[in-house]
Structure formats: C-alpha cells, structure tokens
C-alpha cells in the first residue's frame, strides 16, 4: 500500500515507540498535522513557542530514558528550536526534531519561511538530514532514532520539505541500518582496563567524579560496587547528581564552581581521579592547569573525542560506562582506605558548605530545603538557570538518578518550565517541581498555557529576588557591585497565574513556606508559589571562574562588600 511522507513519518514514530510529540504547526507542516488524527496513539502537545517544544522533549527524554520528539514548521518554527537543540546536544539528550521545509523547488530561493536549518544546526546536532525523496524517509527515521539513543546520545534533526510529506511511495520499515561511519565502541580496551585497575588498586587517595554518562548507561549498580569495594569517595557533576545516592556515606556531593568545599578539596588532594561519563567542563575543573594537580587521571567515556580534549588523561578508556565498570570491577580489590575517607570526612565537618544560616529573612536555600522535606526527596526537580539552579542542586538531595533535570552545558535560561512540562508528561505518577528564577521563568512563561490546556500538574516555585541573580552575584563579587542590567521587574506572578487559571500564592515570610508547599502538593493540578526571597543572597561555596580550589569562597562571616573591596579578585576566562 502506498503511504504519504507524512504517514511514513508517523508509522516510523509509532514503530520506534513514540507516544508523545511536542510541537507547533505552521504552513510547511500542515500535511503532517493533517495526518496526525490517523494516529491516535501519537499524543501531540501543543506548546506556545517552539523553544518550549524542544525543551519539553528534552525534559521528557531525561526523565524517561526514551527519545523525546518535537515538531516545528519551516523558517521561524525551525529557528525557534535552536536553543533547545543546542541544549540537548551539550547535555547528550536523545531528541528528534522534525522540521517542515519549503517545497523542494523553492529550496535555495529564499522562499517564504525558508531557512537552511540543516546548515544552522550542523554544529549542534549529532547528525541531521534534509530528506529530498520520500523513498529515503523510512531509512532516515530508522537511522535517526538509532543515532539519537545509542553511543553518546544527542539530538537529530530531520528536515522534510512540504511536498515530500505529500509524495507517496510503497512503505516498508527497514529492519537494519548500514552506517559504516558510526560504530560506537562499547567494550573498554582490556589493556586499558587492566592499567586502570592497577592504578585504582595502588591508589592511596582515589576519587570518583561521576557524570551524566552513568545515568545514560544506567551504571548505578556498577558505580556503587566500585565505590563500596574500593572505598572511594564519589563526587558528581551537576548532571550526574543522583547517579549515586546522595545519602550514601561515600557520597560527597557535587564538585566544581558551586560544588561542596570538601568535594573540591578531595579532587585537589587525590592521587587518582576516576572520571566516569563526564567531560571536564570548565565549571567542574576551574583553572585547567591547576585541576587535580596530584592525580593520575582515568577517563571513562563513550565518546573518543572527549579523551584529552580538556585535560591530559593518563588512562583513557573509551566505552560504555556500564560495560567498562563491569570489566574494571572484576579487577578491583577490596580496600578500606580509612585514613583517606576520614580525611575527606574531616573536611566535610570543617567546611559543611551548605548549612543554612539562622536568619529571620526568607532565604532561598530554606525554600529549597522545605520542598525537599515536604516531598521527602522523592520529587523530580526541574530548574531554570542561575542561582536558584545551584541552590536546587545543593539543597535538594537526590537518592535516585534522573531526578534533577537541569540545563548543564548550555546553561539555557527558560529551560525550567517547558522541561518540567515534558518531565511531568513522561512521569505522570511522580511529583514534578519546577524551581525557577524570576528571570528564567519570564523567558518561557508562555508555557503556563500549555500546562493548563494539557492539564499537567506541575508545581512551580519561583525563587523571586528581583534580580538576574547569578549575574548580579558576579557583579557584586568581581565588578564592584555595579549592577548593570540585572535589576529585573516582574509582573504579579500570582495574577499572571490566575489569568492562566492556575491557583497561586505569594510567600514573604519564613513561616509561610511549608504551609504553601503543602497546599501546592494537595492541590490536584498545577500550582504556582511566588517566593519573595532575600534579594542579594549569594550562592556559596564558589570557586571564581578560572580560579583554583585555593581561592574557594565560602559563605563569609563578614559582609561581602568588605571582601569585594579588600581583595582584588582576578577573573579570567569569563
């Protein structure tokens, strides 16, 4: 039987197990949307801006482990996806973006709503396709899903001209694919694994840094086995949070710029660093030349191009984290390493890093901690980008993986609300809290309408400090408090929520926090709380950008202003 290109796409999506699509229609994709009613198993979520579709697909993919799918039309529809695609690329999230394109005979003529979206997204996709023949569509869909979810996952864009959606051909979905240039290495090289095992066994002060690769590979058991058998402190990157239970005695929290002091001290003093499924982002390493100065580095990653990209590595192992750790664990000997563990515990005792000070004001950290308490640490937390993101990572403790959903590599403000929408649709039985900043929230506030239309019960906590807080913090610390373009006004979020039909509360006092969160939790549907927090609160600990662990800043005993004036902090690589 002959099918149209649009039908073939839908058939392919169904065959690949897709049941949710986030999208926004337009001229070039009308034939596709016209076909959707024939496929009731594909639920389409109408977002209010294509950026929301890409972020929602991303949040859906991170929390479910499935491929997220988004649709957009040609031209502006496609370009609006770009931030979301870049976000998925930097955080290795499997997303398929399908864009409409102008008719084939219009391509290259600057037609209405024509953009070269494959050209634009070339550096921010794992791969992309412009499908010029309906007969190519089945294999392209098959390849796209394979590429998105295997190896190092990432976004794939499929650009389909309007007339290709309407062309017809005999449909058969391919069983196999043939990509001679794409053969991810899964098993670690035995000689490298052996070298790594020897290094681990001989280490006096080993440290593990676990990243999102552990989540992608679902190597939780293997990581725990390695840590427990060899008694190795485990730190995570922002995207690795939760891949090792944060309540575990060997968990020493997040490392890096806003990581725990003791976590960064552990890296500073380690003799062997086992980096697992992470890529040495500058937010983790600080000044590269001073990173882990005493350590031999073992780097396990599925992407060969990550090896040696940012730091010099002594034992690289290219492979799937789970399989490599299984091989490594067989050769790792049981050790107690009491002295080293005690040392890191001492640092933790002396530099608690995330104690919340006694303060009559409404502290943002306190808000996050209350959400943690009331949700018993069981919620999925989705954040925007900025101070609130760091407080969420620091003060909500995650014992399960994929529960902190955050824009790590790209640092895309506006990620929170649409990603929370995607997470909640993917995980309908889990409480989803969107912890957002007043700045981030205003970037994608339009998705409130989507949440209402689709009846998605996301709980929203706005950490409202009236500033673009993270930039303000840098201005305070490194630019002599010149607050240029960071004071930000916002609408009355409670009224806004009311306008969308979402119940909301404003919280100004500490004692109102818990009752408000409880009210949100008992409400059957979306709920918004506008927390009017201390305006000039800073995120600590902090290693200034481009600085070393020695320059770590803890929450000061004296007012910050004095410190900023007395020290001329050097800032490089901002």
């Amino acid at each position, binding site marked *: 039987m002959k099918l149209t290109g649009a039908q073939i796409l839908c058939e392919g999506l169904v065959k690949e197990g897709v049941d949710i699509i986030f999208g926004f229609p337009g001229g070039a994709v009308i034939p596709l949307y016209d076909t959707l009613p024939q496929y009731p198993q594909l639920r389409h979520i109408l977002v209010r801006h294509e950026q929301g579709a890409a972020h929602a697909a991303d949040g859906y993919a991170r929390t479910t482990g499935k491929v997220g799918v988004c649709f957009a039309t040609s031209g502006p529809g496609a370009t609006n996806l770009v931030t979301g695609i870049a976000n998925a690329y930097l955080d290795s999230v499997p997303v398929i973006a399908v864009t409409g394109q102008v008719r084939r005979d219009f391509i290259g003529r600057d037609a209405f709503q024509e953009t070269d979206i494959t*050209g634009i997204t*070339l550096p921010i996709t*794992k791969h992309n396709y412009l499908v010029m023949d309906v007969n190519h569509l089945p294999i392209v869909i098959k390849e796209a899903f394979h590429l998105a979810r295997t190896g190092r996952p990432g976004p794939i864009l499929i650009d389909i001209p309007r007339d290709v959606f309407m062309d017809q051909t005999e449909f058969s979905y391919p069983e196999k694919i043939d990509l*001679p*240039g794409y053969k991810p290495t899964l098993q670690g090289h035995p000689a490298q694994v052996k070298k790594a095992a020897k290094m681990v066994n001989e280490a006096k002060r080993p440290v593990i840094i676990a990243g999102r690769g552990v989540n992608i590979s679902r190597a939780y058991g293997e990581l725990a086995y390695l840590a427990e058998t060899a008694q190795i402190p485990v730190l995570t990157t922002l995207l690795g949070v939760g891949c090792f239970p944060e309540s575990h005695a060997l968990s020493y929290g997040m490392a890096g710029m806003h990581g725990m002091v003791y976590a960064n001290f552990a890296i500073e003093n380690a003799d062997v660093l086992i980096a697992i499924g992470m890529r040495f982002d500058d937010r983790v390493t600080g000044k590269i030349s001073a990173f882990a100065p005493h350590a031999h580095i073992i780097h396990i990653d599925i992407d*060969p191009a990550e090896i*040696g990209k940012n730091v010099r590595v002594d034992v690289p192992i290219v492979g799937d984290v789970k399989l490599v750790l299984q091989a490594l664990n067989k050769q790792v000997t049981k050790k107690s390493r009491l002295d080293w563990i005690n040392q890191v515990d001492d640092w933790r005792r002396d530099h608690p890093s995330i104690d919340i000070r006694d303060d009559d004001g409404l502290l943002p950290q306190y808000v996050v901690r209350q959400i943690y308490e009331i949700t018993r640490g069981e919620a999925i937390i989705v954040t925007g980008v900025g101070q609130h993101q760091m407080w969420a990572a620091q003060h909500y403790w995650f014992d399960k993986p994929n529960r902190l959903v955050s824009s790590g590599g790209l640092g895309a403000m506006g990620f929170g609300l649409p990603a929370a929408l995607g997470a909640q649709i993917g995980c309908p039985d889990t409480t989803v809290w969107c912890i957002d900043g007043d700045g981030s929230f205003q970037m994608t506030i339009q998705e409130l309408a989507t949440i209402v239309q689709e009846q998605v019960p996301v709980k929203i906590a706005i950490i409202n400090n009236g500033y673009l807080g993270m930039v303000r913090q840098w201005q305070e610390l490194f630019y002599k408090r010149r607050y240029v373009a960071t004071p930000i006004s916002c609408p009355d979020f409670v009224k806004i929520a009311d306008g969308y039909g979402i119940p909301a509360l404003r919280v100004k006092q500490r004692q109102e926090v818990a009752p408000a969160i409880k009210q949100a939790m008992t409400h059957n549907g979306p709920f918004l709380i506008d927390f009017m927090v201390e305006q000039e609160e800073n995120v600590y600990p902090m290693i200034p950008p481009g600085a070393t662990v020695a320059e770590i800043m803890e929450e000061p005993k004296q007012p910050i202003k004095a410190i900023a004036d007395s020290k001329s902090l050097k800032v490089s690589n901002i």
Partner: protein
Amino acid sequence: MTPTKHILLALVEDKPGVLNRMSNVFRRRGFNIHSVNVLETIETEGSERPGLTRVAIVVSGSAVILGQVRRQLEKIVDVVKVLDITTKDLE
C-alpha cells in the same frame, strides 16, 4: 611540541554536505587547514566499500591537536575513517 604538517586521508560517504560537516569541525574547533583535496572515488576491487570518497587534508599541529582533529572528524557520522598518511618526502 613543535607543530608539524600532517596529511590526513578521510574516507567518507558520498553524501550531500559531508565536506561542509568536515570543514565545520576545523572552523568550530579552531584547527587550521593548509590544503584540502577531494578525490573522486575509484572503485578498487574488494577492499573499499562502494561509494566512499577520499578527502585529503593537510593540517599542522601537535600530536594532541592531531589526535583531536582525527577524533572530531571521525565523530561525523558520514566519515568512515581518518588515516594519517604523512610521509617524510613531504617535509
């Protein structure tokens, strides 16, 4: 380490835009191309897969940079293999 010239031979699938994908890696990562030659595919018996095109690129850089260039190029789905075919004659 002093930068030396290397000749890389990439075996790539004959797909639209593959040269663009490759040159993009150089632009994006700040590597320098001295010259690039695209060679028409010659079907040799048995050994080579049909449809593979050869792209010869002369680049300079340390061993670390060269390693990065090769791995970043090989990351492109349409690039099958990248060989370092530098010979002493070319110095």
